[in-house]
């Protein structure tokens, strides 16, 4: 057989946990081979094994029919394997050219010689119509451009086995389309591609064959053309799933949260990350802020919740101006925040679960008296929440938050925030990195809030989530709101155009 890659019976263990359990992956020359699986199914681990970042306990790897041992990324590179990582491996204050040559520098007596590299990079950029500026700094270019730099890194050292790890997560539909074209061009030139994803549409569009993993185990390999999306989805999750959230007709009331002319300057760059943004979130409504990562959504939420200072503008909650209130007062007034980064902002990882569950309420009379914590009351409350929200952990309320799974950590945050009975829930990418079960659960909780007449502000990068959950969509592009849309009246493609800044329907009154 003319397989370029054969990974046979790979097992990789971390402690007692088998991240890969007897997995086989065979990729033909000149094909786009999709690797499908949920978050945590073991896709990234398998690719890290192929890329030499991890050593498997069992199994063998054959490249072009020959058994090989890959000890580090250098070995992988020598075998022609290159990888676009999900989180880009780029140094923010390097230029594009420096980023591409890192690790493969041309030197004379140790001194860098950049001219040849520049020529080769420009040729490649032209060939694939990347329009790259070799002297731009990474921090100054868009996420889409950064991905092109990552692709150029692979092409620069003439790799012919290319791994794309969830490459579309950060792109607009238009950019995704461009990427698919590039992928097709690459396989047409005889390169082979492993395409890691959990998005079935994209597999349908570009892949020839697809291998499915679930919970660290190999499920099977199928021909994409002969298989329906439903079949693939069932293979991936192990049961029938319906990611379309059941939702009743919206019944909006008065505005709960009103944001007026918000402007926020980024501390690092001094540029305006949020420019004169205004919107309202009403009772019984899920308002979704859509946009490509890095267009000011994070800053907007930080500004509303008080984690970042505002340069101008107002935040009004139930008619009360809370712009100048402290973070704690905002919380007391009824603002709940499910943060973007649960490890950084949402949890004190070295605290126990019960300590984390009172992070917003430990100072109330329920949990303290004269400055002394009431440990019994805290434990009882934690037990109650654990039951109500089905938070699973090894030692119940005394488990360290660090030792819990991502899904249960997120459930703990959601329990803490929702049980306070807030007026508005601000949720930022609440299902990022979670498996389907947790996603369904969290989506249901958000819809339940809405149905109970609360307001929900959801920030999401995933178009499916945006289209499924929202009652109304505002699109952010370069810090501005460029569209205010009804999800029932637009298509994903249209939404993509707004996200890419190619279209706008809201004029900013300046």
């Amino acid at each position: 057989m003319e397989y370029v890659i054969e990974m046979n019976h790979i097992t990789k263990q971390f402690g007692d946990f088998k991240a890969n359990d007897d997995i086989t992956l065979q990729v033909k020359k000149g094909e786009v081979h999709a690797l499908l699986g949920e978050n945590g199914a073991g896709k990234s681990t398998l690719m890290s094994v192929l890329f030499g970042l991890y050593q498997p306990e069992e199994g063998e790897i054959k490249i072009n029919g020959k058994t090989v041992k890959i000890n580090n990324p250098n070995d992988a590179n020598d075998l022609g394997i290159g990888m676009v990582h999900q989180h880009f491996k780029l140094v923010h204050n390097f230029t594009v050219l420096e980023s591409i040559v890192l690790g493969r520098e041309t030197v004379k007596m140790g001194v860098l010689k950049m001219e040849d590299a520049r020529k080769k990079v420009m040729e490649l950029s032209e060939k694939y119509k990347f329009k790259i500026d070799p002297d731009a700094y990474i921090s100054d270019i868009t996420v889409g451009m950064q991905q092109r730099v990552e692709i150029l890194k692979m092409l620069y050292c003439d790799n012919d086995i290319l791994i794309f790890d969830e490459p579309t997560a950060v792109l607009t539909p238009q950019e995704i389309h461009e990427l698919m074209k590039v992928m097709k061009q690459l396989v047409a030139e005889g390169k082979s591609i492993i395409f890691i994803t959990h998005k079935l549409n994209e597999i349908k569009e570009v892949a020839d064959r697809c291998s499915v993993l679930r919970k660290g185990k190999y499920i099977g390999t199928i021909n994409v053309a002969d298989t329906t999306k439903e079949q693939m989805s069932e293979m991936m999750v192990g049961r029938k799933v319906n990611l379309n959230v059941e939702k009743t007709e919206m019944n909006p009331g008065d505005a709960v949260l009103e944001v007026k002319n918000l402007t926020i300057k980024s501390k690092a760059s001094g540029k305006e990350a949020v420019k004169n943004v205004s919107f309202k979130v009403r009772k019984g409504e899920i308002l979704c802020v859509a946009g490509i990562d890095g267009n000011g959504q994070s800053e907007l939420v930080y500004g509303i919740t008080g984690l970042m200072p505002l340069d101008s503008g107002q935040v009004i909650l139930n008619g009360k101006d809370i712009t100048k209130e402290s973070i704690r007062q905002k919380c007391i007034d009824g603002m709940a925040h499910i943060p973007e980064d649960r490890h950084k902002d949402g949890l004190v990882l070295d605290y126990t679960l019960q300590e984390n569950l009172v992070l917003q309420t430990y100072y109330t009379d329920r949990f303290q008296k004269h400055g002394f914590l009431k440990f019994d009351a805290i434990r009882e409350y934690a037990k109650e929440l654990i039951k109500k929200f089905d938070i699973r952990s090894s030692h119940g309320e005394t488990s360290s938050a660090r030792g819990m799974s991502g899904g249960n950590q997120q459930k703990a945050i959601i329990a803490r925030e929702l049980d306070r009975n807030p007026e508005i829930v601000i949720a930022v990418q609440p299902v990022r990195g979670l498996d389907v079960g947790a996603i369904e659960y969290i989506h249901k909780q958000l819809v339940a809030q809405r149905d109970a007449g609360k307001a929900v502000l959801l920030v999401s990068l995933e178009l499916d989530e945006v289209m499924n959950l929202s009652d109304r969509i505002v699109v952010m592009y370069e810090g501005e709101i460029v569209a205010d849309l009804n999800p029932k009246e637009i298509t994903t493609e249209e939404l993509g155009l707004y996200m890419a800044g190619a279209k706008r329907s809201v004029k900013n009154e300046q």
Partner: protein
Amino acid sequence: MNSKRKSIFKGEGFVNFSSSILAIICGLLFGFIILLASNPSQAVNGFMMIIKGGFTDGMKGVGDVLYYATPIIMTGLSVGFAFKTGLFNIGASGQFTAGAFAAVYVGIKWTFLPASIHWLVALLAAILVGALVGSIPGILKAFFNVNEVISAIMMNYIGMYIVNLLVRNYIYDPLKNQSVAVAKSAILPKAGLDKIFVGASLNIGIFIAVLCVILIYVILNKTTFGYELKACGLNPHASKYAGINEKRNIVLSMVISGALAGLGGALLYLAGSGKYLQVLDIIAPEGFSGISVALLGLSNPIGILFSGLFIGHITVGGYNMQLFDFVSEAIDIIIAAIVYCGALSLLFKTMIHKIQMKRAKKAEAKAVGTDKGKEA
């Protein structure tokens, strides 16, 4: 019953404790090698002196250990408390010196106070001044993002020079180039300790230090304030998200830390043991000892009490070692080695974990062996 015993040996606390013990053993071994290299014939005798420490000299020796331990327990608490808030207070020396000066100044000049409260006022003055000096790196960190390590080091030098200046201008004994003696009423009461530990300079300072240990333990573990401080130390972002005023906590933590160090200075210089503030360009070593004490005690107040006593113990040993023509700085070398080994705790922790794993596997194998019959 069995599971309870297991949990003690498996707990994080036990692992940390054993890694501290291992660090001490490695540090002492290194010290022995140094002694061996410099004077092989006396090395064993000298080393035994270190090990015996305070137990060489009967009750006097024990009293001396308590006396030496008192100030470094205070600076240890100072450093450890700040550690819990995520701050490295390397400035305990400056705070210690400033507190010592305040206490000595009050002790010399404020003789108008009634004798019964004179020493108390002097201690309070030390606490206040220590807190004030400590607040500066805290404020700079909270409001200007200045690295507290660098600013605290600068404060050590600034504090040292200014105290030198103040001693020379106000309470100077030019013949001895040091401060004059404090009034009798400012010297800490002995409370009968001199009768028990005859010949040692012990006084109620050690009780005050133990009181502080308990106080800090309660603050850290039982109060909302402690909950906030630890949250700030473990994750400042999440603390801010939870509405905890992390700037206020940084400043408060440094203020308390400074107060503890300042009080430590007072306890040493009001001990009536013939210690005077000397006008020298030397940074008080007690602050740095505090770092060792805090690290060895894993920043836990109770741990700090014991590690302070241990360091006091080998310090006394260091003085006794001079009998065998060794230089007492060997103790500082050993302490530095212990701190270094403490930093390598990961190495020790993995070692301990491996041993535990082996034991667990053995136990498992045994259990499986006996259970097999039942299951079948």
